[in-house]
């Protein structure tokens, strides 16, 4: 029943696609890879805020393919507020070699293909991306999604059945002893999220 509904919704989504070049987004994924991605934005409201940068890495088996890192800076219509600069550290001068939003999103879609997406509070990042895809291509991201904080919750709940589980990113990093990869930016966060994902899904289990 559910699968029927999702199939139906998927089909309707596909029907809206404006450019047939992106049909691959709806194809069955055979790469056996995951995409972990993160965005840096001008704020937390998908309706008004814009994407500053997108960082993504592929995961295959137990490996984070940093050799194929995706990092792109997006041109913005507005000035970057000083408050958000404090968080993501992207200054106006850093986005000098940025590309326009349309090209950036298309590039990103080509990178991810139909692979499953993995992220931390993915909903936010996806809705940021969707905002662009809807206006450019008429569709929303059709990819399967895995929410890392949910995996973490599932892993913690047998240990702390009644407790409130702290789902903060830094707590998870600490809990799983993930090395801090330097400052927060889209790629660093994606790599760290990927590490948490690898630990939680135990992909390293007895496999070289």
């Amino acid at each position: 029943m559910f699968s029927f509904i999702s199939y139906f919704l998927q089909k309707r989504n596909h029907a809206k696609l404006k450019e047939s070049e992106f049909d691959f987004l709806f194809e069955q994924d055979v790469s056996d890879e995951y995409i972990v991605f993160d965005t840096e934005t001008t704020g937390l409201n998908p309706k008004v805020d814009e994407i500053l940068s997108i960082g993504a890495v592929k995961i295959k088996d137990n490996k984070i393919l940093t050799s194929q890192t995706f990092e792109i800076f997006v041109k913005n219509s507005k000035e970057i507020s000083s408050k958000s600069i404090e968080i993501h550290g992207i200054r106006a001068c850093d986005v000098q070699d940025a590309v326009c939003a349309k090209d950036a999103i298309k590039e990103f879609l080509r990178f991810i293909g139909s692979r499953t997406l993995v992220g931390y509070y993915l909903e936010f990042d996806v809705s940021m991306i969707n905002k662009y895809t809807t206006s450019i291509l008429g569709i929303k991201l059709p990819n399967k999604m895995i929410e890392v904080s949910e995996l973490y919750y599932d892993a913690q709940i047998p240990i702390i059945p009644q407790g409130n589980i702290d789902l903060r990113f830094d707590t998870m990093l600490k809990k799983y002893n993930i090395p801090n990869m330097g400052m927060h930016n889209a790629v660093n966060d994606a790599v760290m999220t990927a590490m948490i994902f690898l630990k939680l899904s135990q992909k390293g289990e007895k496999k070289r």
Partner: protein
Amino acid sequence: MSILDQRKLIESIHPFELLSSNELDSLMKKIDIAYYAKDTLLISKNLPSIVFYIIIKGSVQEFKGDEVHNVYSFGDFFDADALIYGTTEGRFVVEEELICYEIKKEDFLELMLNKKIQGYFLEDFISRHKQLKYQDVASDLTPFLMSKVSEIFLHAACVASADATIFDALKKQEELKANVIIVQNQDDYMIVTDSDLRKKVLLGRVSVEAQISEIATKGLITIDVNDFLFNALLIMTHNAIKRLVVMDGKKILGVLEQLDLLSYFANHSHLVAVQIDKAKNVDDLKKLQGDLKNLIVTLRAKGVKVRYITKLVSTLNLKIYKKVFDMCVPTSLQESCTLLVMGSEGREEQTIKTDQDNALVVKDGVDLELFVEPMTQLNSFLLELGFPPCSGDVMVSNAYWRRDVKGFKALINEWTGSMSDESAQNLSIFLDAKCVAGNRTLLDELKSYLFDNFHARDDVLAHIAKAILNFETPLSLFSGFVLEKNHSNKLDLKKGGTFPIVHGVRTLSLQYGINETNTIERIKALNNLGVIDKTFASELIESFDTLSAIRLKAMLKAKELQESNYINPQELSKVQRDLLKDSFKIINKFKKFMSFHFHLNMVV
């Protein structure tokens, strides 16, 4: 992680810093991050290596047979040999959840086309060791240049008030043995040097009853006590002056003389030696203690090999022993006895004062009672000079270690006959005996008696040698430190490292009748006799040197002259950890050699 951060990490790992910026860039595009759960088998004989691993987090154990051969942790990499030769004898197993960089085999081999990188991975143990050590010393020099003014000897300052007469001020200067007079005029300071006195009092005919401020020069040049000595040198050179007044805020602490500064920077071992010779009493000797420590620091920073430092310091300590001996033993008795130092002092391997281990041999027929009082005094003088007492009471104040030649021969018979641990221990101590004062022939007689006694007594020798197997080489303990973060896990360098070498080499020396007491000299002698080959001998010497250096550095860092055998591997730099690991590997090799040589597996 952004490419920049990854780059920084890779660059911090030797030998990757040797790569050019372009080479690094292209390398960065080929690196992946991988995650492996505990107990994953990464490489083995049947599982050929396909990537080069650089550890970001976690640890990996390398097994050879059932033994842990090596442990890799943050910043370490493996296994170049497996990639280059395409095969390996070891098994690499994840010991603690692993996050690592991976460079694919083809990419790694391409990297090896770079001569410097290639050189690093292909070089054999010894030369690699030396290269690492060189780097280590270079990084050590900086803290030395960063020494503070507070660390150096300051002369007392003679401060006179502005209205004092020249005569009174000079009298005060004479009392304090100061080189200059500082004149205080409320909050302002002026200075009177010898040349002021010469020009203004002697030639200018200012009366000595005049006020001192009349002849004083304004503009005192000072330096803060927390400033760097290096700066002090710069200020002196810049102003062409020979001394600086050292201030702590507004307070005058003392005067820093150029001569002291230069001798601080220079090796002033000669000075110390002369001062020991000139010392008239124990108090004179006491004053030299600080110099000794400075000497160690200086020499170490200059990159002088630890084995030469220890030798020098031992020589100076022996001088002190001799001096004390002269002070305590009446001249008439000096030729009828010989003072021995044993243990690390006898081997000339102490860098800072270790326990006193000493003994007195008296000529047969001379009354032993005559030596009771001088020896008790000698002992107390040494204590006063900061030579800590021996916990096992191996000291001249103990009658057991104060015998005539006959008495010592009886003791040797006892040791040879008994298989008790205590005998073995006493024998080991005595084996390192070195004569410091008195009649040398007495010791020679005992030594040759000892060697004769042990001729063809391989059973007893095996029993003595067995002690080197008492302590595990801490390669596994090393990994324990990786695992147990809540324990302040330290490493016993003596038990795990120096003892097996020292004791093993000592036992071999007893077997082959080698007279040397110094471990390195003994190794060389064993090599000359063909007991061990040249490569192994150099490996042993390098390992021993490394262990001593790390130990010395740890002790100096602790800022006190306390002998300490424990170090925390976590506090070591990566280079040092590598050196330490390599040394432990050699020690394991040596233990195997000893087991085979003495058939130790058959000794209960």
